[in-house]
């Protein structure tokens, strides 16, 4: 069963919620942060519109699954939470229907500015939807079994199980006898309310009931036959019902004819929602018709008459409303599809569209966006953003923009640019601020702060390590540099030169202290790292910086040793060095390294080196962050020890958006 259903705004206010089992609010909070804000599943998902819940990837968190959908225009999110173990086939339909109904009913209230209050008595609508969908789902499940059972006792139960029978069946019955019966039944069935006879066959017990009801069913047929002759009602004994039926009779007799074809034609579709649409259009406001069959059953099948004692009539109104809402929504959808045809209409709208694209106030469509989005994609590619990242970024922005109205005197181009800029900003901004000095200070004196640096060959791991070392030395930390590149000849010596330089510099300035820890070549890097950390702890170092061997990211043999390394050294920060020069490969690099440390451990940050050599083409930044959601901590900007910078998002944006 459903655990809870919530309707909330993007600004975080819960407008309506229904809880069946207590669920932690952290489920939905984590859905919001990881899907909508950090966009881990797909970019632009947070604002994607007109996508049914079935197309949105379900979000799993702590044994619960969230199904969600959004309304971009109103900033609404609809979330259904249920246990992951359950398989609820109707949940998508539920979320979608609720979305349509809610927007239709309360859309006006939601559009009001400066308020969060939405007065909604939504419980009834929701309950109705749940009931209905659960029943159709159950029906569908049992239909196969049911239909075989029916064939055996067809003559007995034909009137009751009408809804489940294939359309040709009415032919079995004699025409003259039951023409009006069909009329009534079909009109009854075509209202998608869970009428008792659709719900009944779901349990085995009801099968028994059907058997017993055999004579009753016959009786009912007789009664229905009699319905043509008003005198027969007196014999049924219920004065009140017969009166009501009599009162509604003339209208029924006339209307009923139209029903025949409609109702029967729609009979075979198994989702009642869909065939409700035409039915309602034909009989708007004719409540008597719907009441009547219900009332008839009350007389006929006294065994389950209690089911539709009171709630039935109340529910009918609600159901009508709900169905008309859903029907109009589907109608609108088909309208928008068809409306684009027609020469005059299209030419007028084209002129208007052209005018609007200059003045603003134009509602953007996919066609409008196609060309400028292509241009934007090319622009990103020119900035050295990997193709994959550029395409996904553009898709995200496109999804965000479709259906949005441009501001006054705002061209599509500028709108796209601003949207792209804000989505880049959102992406590059780290979730929480990483202040290395603060973090080191926080654990100072307890244990050393371990930073390890990974990356492919030749990107500048050792250089950046020594830059970080210099930065830390200037802040008066005691740093131990560990040479874990036990593979490439000359690697240890290279690091030793750096350390010697740094020692001289620190001696001159009188700050900090640096030592090299090395075990020569050929040793297992993970063991060396582990020993170094213990050594650092004993000797009271503040920071342990571990240099690793460069490795090709698509070489499984080399990458697999990283997991062991992470387990042994337990670094507080694993930083990956990526060079700004690399193009498309950056995505794969970042992704492979991010996944190399095993479950529960990933990269903590990137260092983008050689940024001074690429000018404006800093797209690697975007590609790497985009692929992994790991923030960029440092940017290497030159050959000197002090050419290390933190990332300024504004700076990166300026470079990325500048045109040349």
């Amino acid at each position, binding site marked *: 069963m459903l655990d809870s259903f919530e309707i909330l705004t993007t600004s975080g206010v819960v407008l309506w919620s229904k809880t069946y089992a207590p669920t932690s609010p952290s489920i939905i909070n984590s859905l919001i942060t990881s899907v909508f804000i950090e966009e881990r599943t797909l970019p632009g998902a947070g604002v994607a519109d007109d996508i049914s819940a079935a197309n949105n990837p379900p979000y799993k968190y702590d044994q619960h699954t969230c199904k969600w959908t959004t309304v971009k225009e109103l900033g609404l999110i609809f979330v259904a939470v249920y246990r992951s173990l359950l398989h609820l086939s109707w949940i998508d339909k539920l979320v979608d229907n609720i979305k349509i109904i809610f927007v239709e009913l309360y859309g006006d209230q939601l559009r009001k500015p400066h*308020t*969060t209050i939405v007065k909604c008595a939504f419980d009834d609508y929701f309950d109705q939807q749940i009931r209905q969908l659960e029943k159709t789902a159950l029906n569908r499940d049992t239909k196969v079994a049911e239909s075989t059972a029916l064939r055996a006792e067809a003559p007995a139960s034909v009137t009751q199980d009408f809804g489940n029978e294939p359309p040709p069946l009415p032919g079995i019955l004699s025409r003259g006898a039951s023409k009006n019966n069909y009329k009534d039944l079909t009109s009854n069935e075509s209202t998608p309310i869970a009428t008792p006879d659709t719900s009944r066959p779901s349990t085995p017990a009801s099968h028994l009931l059907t058997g017993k009801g055999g004579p009753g069913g016959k009786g009912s047929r007789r009664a229905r036959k009699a319905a043509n002759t008003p005198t027969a009602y007196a014999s049924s004994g219920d004065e009140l019902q017969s009166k009501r039926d009599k009162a509604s009779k003339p209208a029924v007799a006339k209307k009923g004819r139209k029903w025949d074809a409609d109702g029967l034609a729609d009979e075979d579709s198994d989702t009642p929602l869909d065939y409700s649409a035409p039915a309602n259009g034909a009989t708007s406001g004719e409540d008597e018709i719907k009441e009547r069959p219900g009332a008839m059953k009350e007389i006929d099948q006294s065994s389950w008459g209690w089911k539709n004692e009171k709630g039935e009539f109340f529910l009918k109104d609600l159901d009508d409303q709900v169905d008309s809402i859903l029907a109009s929504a589907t109608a609108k959808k088909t309208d928008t599809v068809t409306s684009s045809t027609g020469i005059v209409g299209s030419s007028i709208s084209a002129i208007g569209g052209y005018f609007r694209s200059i003045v603003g106030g134009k509602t953007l469509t996919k066609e409008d966006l196609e060309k400028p989005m292509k241009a934007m994609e090319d622009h990103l590619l020119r900035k050295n953003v990997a193709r994959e990242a550029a395409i996904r970024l553009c898709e995200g922005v496109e999804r965000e923009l479709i259906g949005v109205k441009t501001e006054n005197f705002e061209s599509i181009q500028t709108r796209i640019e601003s949207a792209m800029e804000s989505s880049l900003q959102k992406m590059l901004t780290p979730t929480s601020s990483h202040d290395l000095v603060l973090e080191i200070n926080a654990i100072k004196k307890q244990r050393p702060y371990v930073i390890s640096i990974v990356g492919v060959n030749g990107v500048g791991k050792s250089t950046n390590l020594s830059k970080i070392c210099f930065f830390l030395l200037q802040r008066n930390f005691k740093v131990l540099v560990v040479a874990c590149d036990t593979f490439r000849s000359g690697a240890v010596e290279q690091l030793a030169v750096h350390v010697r330089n740094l020692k001289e510099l620190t001696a001159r300035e009188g700050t900090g202290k640096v030592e090299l820890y090395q075990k020569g070549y050929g040793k297992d890097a993970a063991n060396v790292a582990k020993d170094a950390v213990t050594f650092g702890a004993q000797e009271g170092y503040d920071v342990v910086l571990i240099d690793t061997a460069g490795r090709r990211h698509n070489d499984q043999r080399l990458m697999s040793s990283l997991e062991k390394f992470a387990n042994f050294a337990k670094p507080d920060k694993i930083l990956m060095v990526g060079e700004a020069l690399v193009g498309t490969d950056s995505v794969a690099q970042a992704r492979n390294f991010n996944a190399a440390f095993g479950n529960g451990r990933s990269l903590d940050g990137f260092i983008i080196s050689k940024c001074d050599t690429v000018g404006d083409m800093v797209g690697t930044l975007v590609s790497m962050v985009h692929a992994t959601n790991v923030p960029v901590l440092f940017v290497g900007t030159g050959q000197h020890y002090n050419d290390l910078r933190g*990332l300024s998002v504004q700076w990166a944006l300026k470079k990325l958006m500048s045109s040349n």
Partner: protein
Amino acid sequence: MSTIQDWAHALMNPSPVGLIIAILIALTIPIFLHTVVFKASGLTTLPSILLLSPSGSGKTSLLTLFERGTPASTHTSQTPLAVECSLPVGTTASSDKYRSTHDPTSLTHKKFLLIDTPGHGKLRHHAQSSITNPQNLKGLIFLVDSATLSAGDEGLRQTADYLHNILLMLQKRSTGSKAAKALKDIPVLIAANKMDLFTALPAALVKSSLEAEITKVREARSKGLLDSGIGMEDEGEENDDWLGEMGSKEFRFKQMEEFDVSVEVLGGNVCGEEPKVDRWWQWIAERL
């Protein structure tokens, strides 16, 4: 020829129909312009109060409490939200201080806009942009979750970091260019929320621990790396990022008064048995 003359006659003649049309046009144009222009320009903006804090401190709850009287259940915000609130009975805005109690205008409650901002790290630019170009901004409320502020807590660090950035923005605003001088000072209320929780610190302790943590943040910032934007294009630009009094050992909120930023810390709680937000109301009333 004659037809042309006829046309000219018809056009020039002071026919009653032509007169009526002319009069109608003459009358409707000003009315039309009036409605269009005034609709577009909008009403005078209400005074606004900005809500800030890291995620999960209770901004949106506070907002709904102020608007409805009872807090609604909320989730993480993604977009900013402005809501029109009015001061409760019994509090008078400072601008109405000298009004007689029988003044009919004091019967209508003073209205203001309360602006909620998302506190998630990626979405803080919403808040920052509303500080840099404020519209009739009367004050900032920085909510803190007093239950997560014990020393050494991650929550304390994040909160202090954000608060440091906000205060630094306000400081730069007042020390910045001459145009900025004309801007009015923006007072800050640090609302220590969730006082109903058992682990919550009292307001005085919230203040001192925040001050201590900001001192650390300030120190770390001064030692931290420069941002990538600086020093690559224009080397010489001096970047003064020291919050509060230059060279002071410890950061105190009092130091902000030098930059026309008054900081107050008041306790209260939004959720729980019964919300206690009277003092925050009082603070808002004094700023309106």
